[in-house]
């Protein structure tokens, strides 16, 4: 029986699969972040809090209104996305003409406020969300929970659909044109501010969707998005700020790398992504898939 770097190939296979599952979350979250940055030029640090809001929305729907997971999966992102739209209309749109730093500070502050309020109300330990599809399959090299398999498939579908919508449809074309040259696009009779608002709502909805998908795996806790937003931000930077395909590929890729780190040197698993970010920035400052503007 041969071993690779001290671990059996079967074990390695399992770890790769688990890494892929985590990568699915990174991809979904960084996708939203990349869409928002690409279109609005705002670094949305509220993303982690919006991911948490998605999970909480689904949990509240389940416990208070008895709405099952599958309906919550659609409804919660809509509600949180709507919240995003309100946020954009009320606050963010005032910052577009200013430096990135203002948008960053605003969204970061908002995240602290939202998380603080939820922690005050519900504490830090988190709320239980039952697994909608319990059970799993023994693949020989590992036990694969059915729900996690579903998450990977769902994430892939969501990512591809978003990429398609932005890169291959007419609406996506307007959107890209509006970021490139808003004055010209407006001259064609297209309501650019509304387009931007909808984009922000979409990005936030994506974060919330990831949150709902995460609810049955992790505890639904006010802090669940706090660490994640940093990782996801790193993913977006590595992929190239604003590059949609870049964030999807990097999300999955970094999930894999982090998974492997958890086997070879688990202590470093929370830092490895930032090390990679530093290296990528040194070699390719615009990120792996980014274009220098």
């Amino acid at each position, binding site marked *: 029986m041969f071993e690779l770097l001290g671990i059996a190939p079967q074990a390695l296979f399992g770890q790769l699969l*688990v890494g892929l599952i985590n990568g699915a979350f990174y991809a979904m979250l960084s996708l939203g972040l990349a869409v928002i940055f690409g279109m609005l030029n705002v670094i949305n640090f509220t993303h982690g809090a919006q991911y948490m809001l998605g999970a909480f929305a689904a949990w509240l729907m389940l416990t208070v209104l008895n709405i099952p997971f599958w309906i919550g999966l659609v409804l919660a992102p809509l509600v949180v996305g709507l919240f995003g739209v309100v946020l954009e209309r009320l606050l963010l749109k005032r910052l577009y003409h200013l430096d990135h730093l203002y948008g960053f500070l605003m969204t970061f502050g908002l995240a602290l406020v939202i998380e603080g309020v939820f922690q005050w109300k519900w504490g830090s*330990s988190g709320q239980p969300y039952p*697994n909608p599809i319990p059970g799993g399959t023994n693949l020989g090299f590992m036990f694969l929970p059915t729900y996690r398999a579903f998450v990977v498939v769902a994430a892939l579908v969501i990512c591809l659909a978003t990429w398609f919508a932005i890169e291959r449809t007419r609406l996506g074309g307007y959107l890209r044109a509006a970021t490139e040259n808003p004055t010209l696009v407006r001259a064609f009779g297209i309501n650019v501010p509304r387009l931007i608002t909808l984009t922000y709502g979409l990005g936030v909805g994506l974060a919330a969707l990831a949150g709902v998908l995460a609810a049955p795996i992790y505890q639904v*806790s006010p802090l669940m998005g706090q660490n994640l937003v940093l990782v996801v931000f790193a993913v977006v930077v590595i992929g190239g700020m604003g590059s949609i395909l870049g964030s999807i590929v990097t999300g999955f890729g970094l999930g894999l790398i982090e998974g492997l780190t958890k086997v070879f040197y*688990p202590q470093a*698993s929370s830092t490895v992504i930032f090390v990679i970010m530093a290296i990528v920035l040194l070699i390719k400052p615009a990120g792996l898939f980014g274009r220098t503007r």
Partner: protein
Amino acid sequence: MRKSLAAAALVCGMGVAALPAAAQISGDVVKLGVLTDMSSLYSDINGPGAVVAVQMAIEEFGGMVAGKKIELVQADVQNKADIAATISGRWYDVEGVDAILGTGGSASSIATMRVAGEKKRMFFAVDPASSDITGKLCNAYTVHWVYDTVVLANGTGSAVVKAGGKSWFFLTADYAFGHALERDVSAVVTANGGKVVGSVRHPLNTSDFSSFMLQAQASKAQVIGLANAGGDTINSIKQAAEFGVVKGGQKLAGLLVFVTDVHSLTLKLAQGLQLTEAFYWDRNDASRAFAKRFGERMNGKMPTSIQAGFYTAAKHYLEQVKALNTDDADKVMARMKSTPADEPLFGKAVIRQDGRKVHDVYLFEVKAPSESKGPWDYYKLIRTIPGEEAFRPMDQGGCPLVKKS
């Protein structure tokens, strides 16, 4: 500053002249500082509940002791050692805090105890678990109040080994506390004829444990020991269920589990876990009465053993100040170490030379959903472990304060 210097000079003068009666309270106020995790993964275990518990103790004194006002300050330690050291230093030096209670995880608590030792001021280590606090790191101004990693090893660890769990794999939080817990439980496992087949160390505040679960399953160990706490333990147990760890025939040993963790997990996932605690709200009339008062101010939440510890530590400290008529740390400490305590929540207790408070602890098992009569009815008592059996004998900790006979 000049004022407190003058006061200090006055206090020294009075000491020399041995003047009777007048209370010797520094700064004319008795100031308690609660420095704990207010915002992160442990904040349900201590956090705002710890502040409320200390407030309750102060209110029982009517806000006054030895004729002086009692004040309370609080801060968030964020479980970071540098923050603990900075705030503790400022509190002792500038703000005239007489006793600090807390201070978050073991790493940040050890930072505070170093400051307390340097400044010669009182520190009640209520939060942390590492047994090194009364072992090689001990100092004369720190009291380790509720529990430690040796207790958890002698309680839960020993019970699981004796029930047949001979081979262990550890899932350990990668900092002072996790390391100490893994070490102390490993010692108990080997002493009882078991063996440790492996371990994996995860960063504090990890959310995804799936990779570690696969490693634990691959180890084929009978028992997976969770040497972590709070949110980390909750996510470990939840994901162990998801990955069919228990169904696959392995047993989980939650080495440090609090009642809030069980509440968050729900009985369905937590049932059958054995755990060791020094306090459970539903253990006797006194604990129920305390829990009721606590719950009224905390949205119906029941106190954890640590929150109860904050209450009794504050109360015990204020009682000493009242009896001695001074908040002088050396005198208060001397009295605490020479006078055994008997209080309603933790029962009879002594504070040893090395700073360890020794009282009985309890091995509980988490009830099945069918056994629970209502919210927060979670534990059934398996065994009372007498303090002398639960805690590490003083001569084995390596504390320099302990005189070798």
